């Protein structure tokens, strides 16, 4: 895998190879994208719409996380902070300030990006385990803030958040109306991430992942690139959290807790690190398990563990990574 995207390929090779695809998608990715869009359109008629909405919010969250770990090689253990704060701010904006849903979601994204600016500025100065520990420490600070701050409602969270009217006109109270909004938010986020990865900026990100000192020696300010990638990832995580808050009408401590940071790592690993579609499939597997296995009582966590072990043992590249390997395409 490393040899495919080594630095020597960057100036001409990679860009030249992908030019024939549409919007930077190669053949396999185009098919996968069409399948995904078809599934998005059909899902609410076959599956429970609220479940699919939750899945899409987590899929966007995992995609945002994957942007960082899969393409820059930065392992953040504190992404729950940006996801959860996005949710709290959107909930506060929609309930107390009475703002419309699209403004609330944008507010959630902005606060995620703003926190990402502070957290990233501090964390990117270190690498590897130190980077992960700094992000985790910052996330714990956000968690403590959420436990204490008056506007978050402590351990009860913000409850009964109205979904409101989109642009002030279209009511979102019905699950189907909300579903299409969530689907559009997810697709926009997904395409944005894809665009970033295939931009010249994305090429530098991948170069940093493969060999940071060499990228520096080529004249790139790697810290600046890492910071921008961190802010983008956090902003999208904030958008995902804000959307989830509007879907359920609640924002609680679960979303800022560090176990949520672990869950998003799990989703990305199960789906496939560094693949565009991997996090979506990973989120579907993890959220599906939480939802459909809930009726098995105490077995949920056991089964979750077994599936995780099975994935790590049998599919090293994650589900999507293995499928891509099977068909010899990059997904």
């Amino acid at each position: 895998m490393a040899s495919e995207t080594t630095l020597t390929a960057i100036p001409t090779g990679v860009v030249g190879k992908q030019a024939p695809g549409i919007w930077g998608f190669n053949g396999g990715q185009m098919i996968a994208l069409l399948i995904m869009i078809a599934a998005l359109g059909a899902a609410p008629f076959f599956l429970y719409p609220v479940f699919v909405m939750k899945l899409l919010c987590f899929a966007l969250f995992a995609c945002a996380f994957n942007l960082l770990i899969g393409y820059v090689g930065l392992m953040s253990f504190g992404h729950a902070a940006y996801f959860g704060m996005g949710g709290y701010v959107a909930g506060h904006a929609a309930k107390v300030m009475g703002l419309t849903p699209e403004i609330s979601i944008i507010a959630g994204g902005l606060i995620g990006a703003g926190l990402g600016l502070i957290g990233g500025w501090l964390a990117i100065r270190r690498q590897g385990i130190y980077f992960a520990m700094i992000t985790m420490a910052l996330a714990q600070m956000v968690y403590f803030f959420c436990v204490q701050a008056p506007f978050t409602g402590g351990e009860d969270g913000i409850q009964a958040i109205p979904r409101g009217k989109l642009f002030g006109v279209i009511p979102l109270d019905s699950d189907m109306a909300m579903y299409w909004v969530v689907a559009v938010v997810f697709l926009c986020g997904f395409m944005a991430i894809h665009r970033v990865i295939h931009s010249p900026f994305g090429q530098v990100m991948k170069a940093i992942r493969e060999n940071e000192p060499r990228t520096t020696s080529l004249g790139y300010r790697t810290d600046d690139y890492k910071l921008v990638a961190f802010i983008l990832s956090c902003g999208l995580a904030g958008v995902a959290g804000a959307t989830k808050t509007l879907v359920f009408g609640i924002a609680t401590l679960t979303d800022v807790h560090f176990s949520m940071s672990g869950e998003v790592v799990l989703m990305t690993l199960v789906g496939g690190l560094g693949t565009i579609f991997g996090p979506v499939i990973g989120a579907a597997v993890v959220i599906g398990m939480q939802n459909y296995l809930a009726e098995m009582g105490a077995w949920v966590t056991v089964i979750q563990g077994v599936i995780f072990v099975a994935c790590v043992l049998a599919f090293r590249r994650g589900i999507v990574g293995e499928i891509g390997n099977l068909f010899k395409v990059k997904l």
Partner: protein
Amino acid sequence: MSLSRRSALLTGAALGIAPLSRAGAQANTIRIGVLNDMSGPYRDISGPYGVACAKQAVAEFGAQGFNVEVINADHQNKPDVGAGLARQWYDQGVDMILDVPTSSVGLAVAQVAKEKNKAYINTGSATSDLTGSACQATTVHWMYDTYMLAKSTGSAMVKAGGDSWFFLTADYAFGHALERDTAAFVRAAGGEVKGQVRYPFPSTTDFSSFLVQAQASRAKVIGMANAGADTINTIKQAAEFGITRRGVKLAALLMFLADVHALGLQTAQGLVLTESFYWDLNDRTRAVTRRLLPHLSGAYPNMASIANYSATLHFLKAVKDMGVAAAKASGTELVNRMKAIPCDDDAFGAGSIRADGRKLCPSYLFEVKSPAESKGPYDYYKLLGTTPAGEAFRPLNEGNCALVRS
């Protein structure tokens, strides 16, 4: 490697198919969904025992012209999982959701029940908002809330002689509310509050310096305004310091028989706590406990698990009273009927449900026995005081519930 991969795939496929084989809803079947914690910190308090208690109530209610089905799921203490499951259940024909510990999940499910106009009986959350600012016409709050715990432990304890208090408070909204409410009841009953210390929440595991401060205040009672693992740790460390052996009482504000069992009498002796049910209170509680025991795999019921028994019985009575079709049509009407007919069961005796959805029952102040006083399994409590049903809960007009004002 290829073999293990194939077997892993097969196992995965088998697991994926398992939950799909579920029967659809039938018109003459009342479905009760027990939504609680089956794997986390509240498992031993209700969890599988709460489900068994609800099933026992269905068995005792017997055949009355309609079928009753009890299903259960684990909300994993996540509000979004809980609210999502509740939505799905109500849409798939579940008529009442029961239990739901953890306040954030309890409040979230109340919103869903209101939206879907279905009955919701909470027996596991402590937040008094369920019958206050967040009250709904579809909600019944069956068991303890923070007001009742503070009142019983605060004022009954002063009456029993513990008239000077020191508080050990978890520094977040729930801890502050418990401390404030309990201190108010202590003062109202003529007691004195000598001071308080607030410790960072969560992640405080060493309570020694706080306990020493509490001891230095020379208060007769140390009130623990916290919950769960913090309370357990405080009690263990207080026992190690020998605080309780020197005559100082530890008062737990949210504690159950299962927690005392887990701690053991040696550690928990002398602890003061409030519950609404104890199996050895009277002939009726002993009778219902005897009937339940074969289904509880060795554990004894506490107020949270047996509330599911009591609530299910009353719910089924109301369904029978108004007919299955009418009960399925409107959760608000069903809950109104539950409020209209009087409650009576072996666990809590005679009672009633108030306009704001509050089930009324007496609360009892217990002291944990010493190992020498305990004569048999689960012989743990001695009664210190009783707060009658009419006084145990927050007065109707002080809750700020919209159902009461209109």
